[in-house]
């Protein structure tokens, strides 16, 4: 899209070109007119000289006649003036007609005649002075002088006609050039007026449209600017409020930082004490680990003895099986003895009593072996339980030993970490102090920001006023643009 300046410049440039063309045409016409006018003046001068030559010759002839007739020298004054002026006039005439060969030729023809005429006049005058009137009259009556004058008149008349022809041609040229210049000026001026009017109309229309759009844009922008300024003002108020709250929070933060520094100091102190206690605990744990190793050895010994006891119990069980078998066989034998005693009748009754006693003893042995078997089973179960419990204890002791080793390592690590903690607590203390200083600086910065927020609020209000003024200005511009269109 073309800018305002470009459009206006283009309009003025076209108008300038048109005016320049019209001026050029006018200049060329005026120059032609001036040249033609000069030529016309030149023609008039030539005509004047032609007429002057004839007039001077007439004056000389008039003086010659008066003197010849009167003999009075006073009548020779025109003659003197004529013969004095003719050469100069001829010379000027030759110079004035240097561009016209016809006229030069005629001048060449006229000059001998003029010289002859002047010679005839001088001869007559000289004769008259000598009082030779007859000779003088004879010469005059001879008619040579008249013939020369007639030839001169013819030649000068030819020159006059030609010059007048030239004058007519040049007048016609002047009229033609003047007519062309007039037409050019009239039509060019009319066209220029039409073009300037059209260009002014279109430029005005285009500029009104563009400026109107720009003004509408300015109105919209000013409205947005007002809105933004309102938001900025409210934001600045909120920022100011928030800065006040931040200021309060920072004050609390400073107090908290001081408390943290004090706590970090106490932590460092406690960490040092804990480190000492951990080192003492490390020694205790090492002793406990040695005791646990002793317990483990004792538990292994117990397990070995208990396994031996289990084997012995199994052996006792085997022997008891033998005893039980013997008791059963004894019982069977006693019963068979009893049967045999019954078969023996009275003689066997006493034997039957003994056999019954033997059988009872065998029964009791069998009962006792059952009890012993129960006891052995209980012993074996107890041994198994004890072995399992002892193995569990051994595993627990192993686990305890490993855990003690881990505890020892953990205590060492705790001691190291406590050292690190002490250093960290000191660093925290130092950092917290630095933080407190930084927070104070932040507090100052926040105060500055609060001031800046207030200044921003004022600036936003000023922006709001400026936006209002801009809106008014845009409305005024709209009115200025739309007034001609509406009017």
């Amino acid at each position, binding site marked *: 899209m073309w800018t305002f300046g470009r459009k206006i410049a283009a309009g003025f440039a076209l108008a300038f070109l048109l005016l320049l063309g019209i001026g050029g045409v006018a200049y060329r016409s005026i120059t032609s007119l001036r040249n033609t006018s000069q030529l016309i003046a030149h023609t008039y001068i030539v005509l004047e000289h032609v007429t002057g030559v004839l007039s001077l010759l007439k004056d000389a002839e008039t003086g010659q006649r008066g003197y010849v007739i009167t003999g009075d020298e006073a009548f020779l004054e025109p003659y003197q003036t004529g013969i004095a002026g003719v050469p100069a006039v001829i010379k000027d005439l030759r110079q004035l007609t240097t561009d016209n060969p016809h006229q030069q030729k005629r001048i060449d023809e006229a000059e001998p005649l003029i010289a002859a005429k002047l010679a005839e006049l001088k001869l007559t005058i000289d004769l008259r002075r000598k009082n030779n009137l007859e000779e003088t009259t004879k010469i005059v009556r001879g008619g040579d002088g008249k013939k020369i004058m007639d030839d001169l008149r013819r030649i000068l008349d030819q020159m006059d006609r030609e010059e007048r022809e030239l004058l007519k041609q040049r007048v016609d040229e002047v009229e033609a050039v003047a007519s062309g210049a007039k037409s050019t000026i009239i039509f060019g001026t009319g066209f220029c007026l039409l073009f300037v009017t059209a260009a002014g109309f279109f430029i005005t229309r285009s500029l009104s449209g563009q400026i109107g759009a720009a003004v509408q844009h300015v109105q919209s922008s000013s409205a947005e600017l007002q809105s933004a300024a309102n938001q900025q003002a409210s934001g600045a108020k909120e920022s100011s409020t928030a800065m006040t709250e931040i200021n309060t929070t920072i004050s609390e933060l400073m107090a908290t930082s001081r408390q943290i520094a004090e706590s970090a100091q106490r932590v460092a102190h406690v960490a040092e004490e804990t480190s000492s206690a951990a080192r003492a605990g490390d020694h205790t744990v090492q002793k406990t680990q040695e005791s646990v190793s002793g317990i483990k050895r004792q538990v292994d010994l117990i397990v070995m003895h208990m396994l031996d006891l289990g084997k012995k119990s199994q052996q006792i069980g085997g022997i008891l099986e033998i005893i039980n078998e013997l008791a*059963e066989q004894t019982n069977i034998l006693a*019963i068979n003895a*009893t*049967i045999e005693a019954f*078969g023996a009748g009275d003689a066997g009754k006493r034997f*039957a*009593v003994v056999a*019954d*006693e033997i059988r009872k003893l065998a029964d*009791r042995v069998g009962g006792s072996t059952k009890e012993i078997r129960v006891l052995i089973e209980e012993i074996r179960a107890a041994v198994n339980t004890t072995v399992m419990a002892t193995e569990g204890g051994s595993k627990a002791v192993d686990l305890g030993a490993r855990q003690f080793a881990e505890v020892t390592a953990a205590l060492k690590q705790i001691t190291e970490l406590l050292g690190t903690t002490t250093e960290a607590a000191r660093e925290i203390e130092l950092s917290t102090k630095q933080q407190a200083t930084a927070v104070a600086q932040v507090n100052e910065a926040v105060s500055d920001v609060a001031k800046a927020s207030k200044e921003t609020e004022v600036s936003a209000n000023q922006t709001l006023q400026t936006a209002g003024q801009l809106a008014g200005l845009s409305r005024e511009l709209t009115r200025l643009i739309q007034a001609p269109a509406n009017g």
Partner: protein
Amino acid sequence: MSEPSAIASTAAELRNAFDRTRAIPFSTQAVEQVESLLSIRVSGDPYAIRVGEISGLASDRKVVAFPSSIPELLGVAGIRGGLVSVYSLAALLGYTREADQARWLVLCGTEEPVGLAFSDFEGYLRVPLTHVYATDQGNAAHAHVKHVVRAAELVRAVVSIPDMVELIKRRCEKSRVSKEQ
């Protein structure tokens, strides 16, 4: 588990009982007033056998089976240097089958001893004669049980060994007759 003191008192009681037995004067009267029985179980049921009706008791003897038309005959076993025919007491008593292996034997008869096999031997009983009761003979299913005995809160049928021997003889005779026919 028995305590050591209880075991010691039991041992002392046994010792005293043995000493007391040896201390009192010998008397056969006590023997005559009681019935000596073997308490057994046949297919889980309690039975008793009179000691006076048998000639011996054995256990875990190898019984060699051989083909026979008598279904109650289990085979023969070597006892005291002789061959003894072994019959299933449970089969003779009418049980269809014995639940467990019959590892016990009682010997019956003197001329041609036979063995009656059963599964469980519980012990030796001495029961007063007053605890032995006669049974009703009308029940054919218990034809070989003529008495019952009450011992240790339990009533046991007393198997009549002579009847069993007689039954075996009849079966053998029947088998022989059927073979001859």
